[in-house]
């Protein structure tokens, strides 16, 4: 049982992700976790206002089924399979403390950002909404996310995906090294 309860190491997790990509290809689809956002917008009627969402979303119902599964799987894992908080590098724990984030190694997510208390502040709310916004906007602008570009795209040796992944890292590094000290 320890195998299930402990953190799954990279050499187990990475190959399993590749296996999921293979299964989706065998099902005639491709692995990507952000196009469902477009499907949901379209389902909610965004096609009435914006042409980008005017498509037959029912043909993409499968990615909503995947999302339902992901939500359920996350719930099962968080509630029943994951008693431990991620144990991160000690240097990083110290760096985070300097930013005022003290919940490393004790919880799965930093309570300083995700707690209800923080959500109720303008700053806390804005961080989450803006973070989500940039992810959603950037994923559609670049045509994919970590799964679509970094996994599926690089597996297919696509240059556009390599450019996008380099962009992901440029953005991430700028955020953490230059913007975090200003935000937190």
């Amino acid at each position, binding site marked *: 049982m320890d195998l299930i309860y402990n953190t799954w190491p990279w050499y187990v997790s990475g190959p399993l992700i590749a296996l999921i990509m293979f299964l989706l*290809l065998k099902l005639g689809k491709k692995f990507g976790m952000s196009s469902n956002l477009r499907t949901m917008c379209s389902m909610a009627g965004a096609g009435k206002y914006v042409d980008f969402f005017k498509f037959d979303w029912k043909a993409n119902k499968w990615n909503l*089924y995947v999302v339902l599964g992901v939500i359920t*799987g996350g719930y099962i894992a*968080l509630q029943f399979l994951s008693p431990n908080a991620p144990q991160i590098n000690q240097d990083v724990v110290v760096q985070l403390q300097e930013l005022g984030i003290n919940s490393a190694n004790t919880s799965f997510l930093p309570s300083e950002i995700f707690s209800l208390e923080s959500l109720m502040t303008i700053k806390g709310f804005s961080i989450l909404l803006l973070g989500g916004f940039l992810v959603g906007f950037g994923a559609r602008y670049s045509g994919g996310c970590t799964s679509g570009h970094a996994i599926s795209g690089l597996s297919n040796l696509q240059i*556009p995906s390599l450019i996008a992944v380099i962009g992901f890292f440029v953005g*991430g590094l700028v955020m953490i090294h230059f913007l975090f000290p200003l935000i937190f």
Partner: protein
Amino acid sequence: MKQFLSFFFIGLFLGILFIKSEVASWFRIYEMFQFKSFQMYGIIGSAVVLGIIIVHYIKYSKQKDFNGDAIIITPKNKGFIRYFVGGIIFGLGWALAGACPGPMYVLLGTGLPSILVLIIGALLGTFVYGAIKNKLPH
């Protein structure tokens, strides 16, 4: 029903994997951008190495999908600006929220309302992109 179940179970497995591998943890993403842990690089790297082998195998053995149709992997259109600029915007959000789209759904299982705000943000971002798409350089 069969279609629903196959995709649902793939998602279910993926959801468990996102938590158990800790890629859905904000801390792991921060640590990755500090280059202080191999976990994230190992996961993405090994998935890509195996993925390259799988995609090559599919192409050269002309694998069919479960329905018996040819598996066609359409490459992305050529371009630079949309991939690079879009990628940077995505990366800024990935680091700030500490989550990309898959993990956002997974984290709903924490029961935290803040995750809903993240997802609403992502939907808004998708909508705004759709609305101003024609004005952006691609």
